[in-house]
């Protein structure tokens, strides 16, 4: 026993601050949050502990799922995620493919495509809020105005000011921000493919297209999976960009993360916590299989 302690004691001591912090601020807080989501904390004095609260079990969840407003948020979240995923995967893959051959100006393109990632969502929101201005006709600005200048007036629309699909306009901004990231992932995937594979295919007389279709693309499926998971879980957390382009109070662009913020600021801690739990559940579905697979593979 002392031997084991000598052997494992110091390293455990070294990582113990991190372990404690993660234990408290990730795991304990998830549990605490879950507990709050089962209470009836919905007033100011309850949030400060001046008034008592009680456990109402899953009432908050039932109310949430029953309400139009939250169903609308969920629908928005799905639309946003699908648009965002399809957009970033398509553009990211296309760019990586176009840049896969090392060429003279490759570096410039790559740098430009990736740069929006270095900009905060709030800054991106400032510009996209302007671009996605919903005015048309004489008061048009932003993209609608650009369409007028290009004589593409029929393309004008009210962007995010549309209850059913407005959220997709905001996903456009997100696609602008993160396609470069997916490109970088795919590009790394392309570069990771050994040259021998290409050469072998060429020796076999495969055409360029066949080379890609049958040899190179299949090699990229693990990268595609990673990209899907990363982008998917980013999309579930989407908040910064949405509130920077629209406003938290706007019904059109509500998603659960925005609801959480609103609930929190009106003392509805119980509902805020419940929304948090729901978001966590979505992320778990996506992430846990990934983490488990990774851990197994490492062994």
């Amino acid at each position, binding site marked *: 026993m002392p031997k084991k302690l000598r052997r494992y004691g110091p390293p455990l001591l070294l990582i113990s601050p991190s372990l404690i912090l993660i234990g408290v601020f990730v795991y304990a807080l998830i549990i605490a949050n879950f507990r709050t989501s089962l209470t009836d904390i919905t007033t100011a004095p309850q949030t400060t502990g001046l008034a008592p609260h009680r456990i109402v079990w899953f009432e908050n969840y039932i109310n949430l799922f029953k309400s139009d407003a939250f169903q609308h948020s969920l629908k928005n979240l799905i639309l946003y995620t699908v648009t965002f995923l399809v957009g970033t995967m398509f553009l990211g893959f296309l760019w990586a493919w176009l840049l896969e051959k090392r060429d003279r100006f490759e570096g410039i393109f790559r740098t430009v495509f990736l740069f929006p990632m*270095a900009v905060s969502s709030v800054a991106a929101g400032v510009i996209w809020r302007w671009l996605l201005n919903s005015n048309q006709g004489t008061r048009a600005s932003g993209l609608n*105005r650009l369409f007028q200048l290009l004589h593409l007036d029929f393309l004008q629309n009210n962007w995010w000011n549309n209850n059913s699909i407005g959220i997709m306009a905001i996903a456009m901004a997100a696609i602008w921000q993160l396609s470069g990231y997916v490109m970088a992932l795919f590009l790394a995937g392309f570069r990771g493919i050994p040259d021998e594979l290409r050469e072998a295919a060429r020796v076999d007389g495969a055409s360029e297209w066949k080379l890609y279709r049958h040899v190179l693309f299949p090699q990229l499926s693990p*990268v595609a999976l990673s990209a899907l998971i990363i982008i998917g879980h980013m999309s579930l*957390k989407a908040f910064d960009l949405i509130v920077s382009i629209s406003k938290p109070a706007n019904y059109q662009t509500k998603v659960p993360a925005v609801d959480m913020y609103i609930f*929190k600021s009106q003392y509805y801690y119980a509902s805020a916590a419940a929304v948090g739990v729901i978001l966590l559940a979505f*992320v778990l579905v996506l992430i846990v299989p990934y983490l488990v697979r990774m851990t197994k593979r490492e062994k």
Partner: protein
Amino acid sequence: MSESVTLYDPAPAVRRRRGKGFNWARLLRYLLLLFFLIVVLIPVYVLVITSFKENATASQAWFLPENWSLENWKSAWMGFKGLPAIGPALGRTVGMVVPAAIISSFLGSMNGFVLSRWRIPYSNVIFTLILFGMFIPYQSVMVPLYQIVHGLGLPPGTPSLIFLHVVYGIPITTLIFRNYYESIPNELIESSRVDGAGMLKTYSRVVLPLSVPSFVVVLIWQFTSAWNDFLFALFFSSGNNGPVTLALYSMAGGSMLQDYGASMAAAIMSSLPTLLVYILLGKYFVGGLMSGSVKG
């Protein structure tokens, strides 16, 4: 890490299969790339020209300013009509981001070292449990977090934010360092052990000096993500003591939307530091990006 190296391989361009004469495929490729380049840069164009316009009317929005003016830049930097000024906010952000990045780098380095090189039981499980913290939506801990941070008496603004970025930076920094340390040849560490050096000595004498590139990657990563953070800033600081993202948010979303020029100037200012890092240290920036992802 290794991916980023291949991605940024400085080796001269290898051209395969150059057709003789004109190459239609190549032309098409460049046309497509150019098209996307323009599309990606459109927002930047608008951002820059609007920030130099004195009175931006909607109809002239897409044209270059008639008079280039620095007025917007001035008012954004100094703050106008009482809105939080970007100048001091930039200062506060630096004061928040630098300590946060340094502290979390060291924590990540220690964890990475222990989890990769010191075969403690269940190190894989511990690692995965730490890593999980990277993926959680912070909304799922925000309510109790808000209560606990205030309960601890951490003042809103810089102190709270440093603490939060350090805590929630642990997973990613641990991941980057662990992956890096796994690539260090075992002999180096073994030889130091044979010398009878204890764990701390091995760490400080052998491992730390080797970690410089990793530190750069992690520092940049933490710098960028803390700089661009908005969620924690919104919950744990205010326009007057918070970072630049919050100041920008109040400026753009406050009642002064008509002053687009100033918010656009502010948006540029707030993004310059991270853009600078991206342009100068792109390789390391991408290194951070890749670390969590190409493991699949």
